[in-house]
């Protein structure tokens, strides 16, 4: 029966690619193999976000008048609404964590080196898109915190040279943050970003598929295991663990709703962005308002963009790694700049 059905499909479509994936794709085994889980984990959380996001759309109303009330309805009246929303909120955090761990892992294993430069670049843009999801999604409940997040977050866009003011108005849908802003952020959050992200994820996976998993420099794999079902089942096991953590967090610390946004209310004290934005926030806070007549915000954005650009072109800077030689300098810079500095600045920003 199964055979017959497969044959029926086979007559119409060439299934060799899928057969290749299920039968021949292997994963190298060495002491860094567990690092391969992070990418799959990020993908898992992304799927969770898509599912819960679609569910939230059944009740959410993206207008200034109704956004808050509709979330309130979800939280108080829709059965399991609290769970779906709480999972979506916690999912953001866990997905960012998985994406960042994946990025760090790939950086330290120098997985970006030739021939996987394009995988790294597509991954970089996926990281930016993940931040974009948070940025556009956070204001949607239209509570006090969301409102100021939108206001302060979009304000920094305005200092981009030349197009800044136009871009600011285009994102806000006017001079100020209003109901129009919700419509625009909503469109970005549920249509534009998912389309781009899904496309890029497919590309990213295609690169991995074509080139196989990268083995760190000077590491000799002790063997390899088939991706399907051996590695896939391990992936599945990790995902189930992640699901327990996610549902547990959502159950014990459900997402809050807070007060409805009021346009003329003063900002609540101790307002800080989500933890993954803290390094950027802190850098912008440290920079004085003007340096040599140039706006500090512009310099801050310039600095952050330069940093991001450096990360983007790492595969081309790290020439040694592309010759399969150990590039200790990049590891050291990575440890101190990417890891220690970012962690320290995040903790500092969280505490002060």
């Amino acid at each position, binding site marked *: 029966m199964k055979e017959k059905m497969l044959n029926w499909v086979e007559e119409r479509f060439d299934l060799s690619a899928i057969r290749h994936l299920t039968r021949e794709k292997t994963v190298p085994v060495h002491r860094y193999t567990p690092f391969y889980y992070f990418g799959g984990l990020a993908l898992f959380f992304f799927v969770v976000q898509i599912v819960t996001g679609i569910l939230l759309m059944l009740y959410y109303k993206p207008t200034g008048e109704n956004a808050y009330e509709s979330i309130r309805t979800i939280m108080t009246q829709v059965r399991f609404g609290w769970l779906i929303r709480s999972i979506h909120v916690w999912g953001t955090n866990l997905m960012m964590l998985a994406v960042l761990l994946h990025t760090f892992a790939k950086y330290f294993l120098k997985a970006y080196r030739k021939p996987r430069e394009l995988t790294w670049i597509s991954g970089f843009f996926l990281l930016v898109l993940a931040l974009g999801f948070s940025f556009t999604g956070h204001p949607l409940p239209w509570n006090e915190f969301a409102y100021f997040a939108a206001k302060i977050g979009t304000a920094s866009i305005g200092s981009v040279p030349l197009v800044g003011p136009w871009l600011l108005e285009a994102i806000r849908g006017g001079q100020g943050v209003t109901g129009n802003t919700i419509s625009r952020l909503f469109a970005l959050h549920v249509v534009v970003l998912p389309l781009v992200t899904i496309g890029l994820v497919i590309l990213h996976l295609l690169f991995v598929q074509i080139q196989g998993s990268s083995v760190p420099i000077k590491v000799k794999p002790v063997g390899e295991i088939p991706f399907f079902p*051996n590695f896939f089942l391990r992936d599945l096991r990790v995902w189930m663990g992640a699901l327990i953590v996610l549902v547990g967090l959502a159950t014990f610390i459900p997402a809050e709703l807070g007060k409805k946004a009021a346009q003329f209310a003063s900002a609540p004290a101790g307002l800080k962005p989500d933890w993954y934005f803290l390094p950027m926030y802190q850098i912008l806070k440290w920079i004085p308002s003007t340096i040599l007549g140039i706006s500090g915000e512009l310099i801050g954005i310039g600095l952050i963009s330069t940093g991001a650009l450096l990360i983007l072109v790492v595969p081309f800077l790290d020439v040694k790694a592309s010759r399969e030689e150990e590039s200790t300098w990049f590891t050291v810079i990575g440890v101190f700049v990417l890891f220690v500095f970012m962690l320290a600045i995040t903790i500092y920003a969280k505490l002060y």
Partner: protein
Amino acid sequence: MRKIITIILVFTALAVYQNVHAEETSCQACHAKLNGRLSEPVTQWKNSVHHQAGISCTNCHGGDPAARSESSAHNEKTGWIGKPGPIKSVRICGNCHGNELFMKKFDPNARTDQLKNYLTSNHGINIMFKKDGKGATCVSCHGAHDVLKAMNPQSHVYPTRVVETCAKCHADKKLMAKYGISGNEVSEYKKSVHAKALYEGHDLFAPTCNDCHGNHGAVPPKAASIEDVCGLCHALDQKLFNESPHKAWKESGLRGCMECHGNHAILKPTDAMLAPGKGICLKCHETGEKALKTMNTMYSTLTGLKRKMENTKKLVDTASEKGMPMDDALLILQEARNSYIKSHTAIHKFNAAYVQQTAQGAFKEVIKAQKIAHARIAEIKKRRAFFYWFGAVIILLILLLSIKIRIMVKKKKRLP
């Protein structure tokens, strides 16, 4: 002909205009250059309501504002007064402020009864009739040159500043002793719930000195009127009090509200005022009297309600901390708070059954809120139970999967 009239009109208009807006009189020109006490009035006056209304130095001090020398400006022939004494100063203020036709030009609702009232006050009697020169005059409270409208925050008689203004004299024990006043009133008032509302709550309508004593006709409220004074804001309490066995307080030589609440240091009333064995009723009533039984019942009703409300609030907060939206319960609690206040007001009828009946309304509401809180806490438990079951299933799945993976590894090792 018409042209000539027009020209004349324009010129007279210009002349009048110049006269009114002659920015500098010689008074200001000279006094501004003097030192200290003699120049201060110029700046003070410039910020005052009188400057805005076009009332100038000569209106009170007389003299010639166009004069070129000190002697011609300060000439008694041109009506120069100099610094008016207390009686004179009251008359000067009264000249305008008692003149309705004049005052209505500036404000159609302006009151003009201040002088009349003042003459009935102890301040006015001391100054104007006993002529002891020690009572407060207009300028003692309103300032001489820096007079502002009462609701201007800079004014000496603005609600938050009026106490200090009265304190200038009334906190002076030596001075007050002459009039049989203790001089403690200001410091006592500062302990009161009214002062707290005024200074900490920034409630401009909280009573200060003048709200009970009047402002221009400042007299102590006579014992007979104290209840009406308090009743201005505490209307329900007054109504109930008049239905109580205490309604005949005047005949018994008592002082109404004051007997229990005091006068200047009126503290926030507490349930402890009714505590068995310690309550304020014991001041007059003796052990064994029926009145004390009423006190005890009222005390247990009110404290019982308070405990119930506090416990419910805690329960609601617990549910809220655990992530449940508690708006509805909080709304009911707010309504209950109203009933709670009402049942405290109810004690002024001094009828235990009435207090119990009033408190019943609050009890009902609190129980409603309590039920909601219990339901929400049960919901939290249900959610967690769901998670435990779900978690157990997934953990078992993980374990089974691990066994499966191990078997696969073994199988693979055996095969080749």
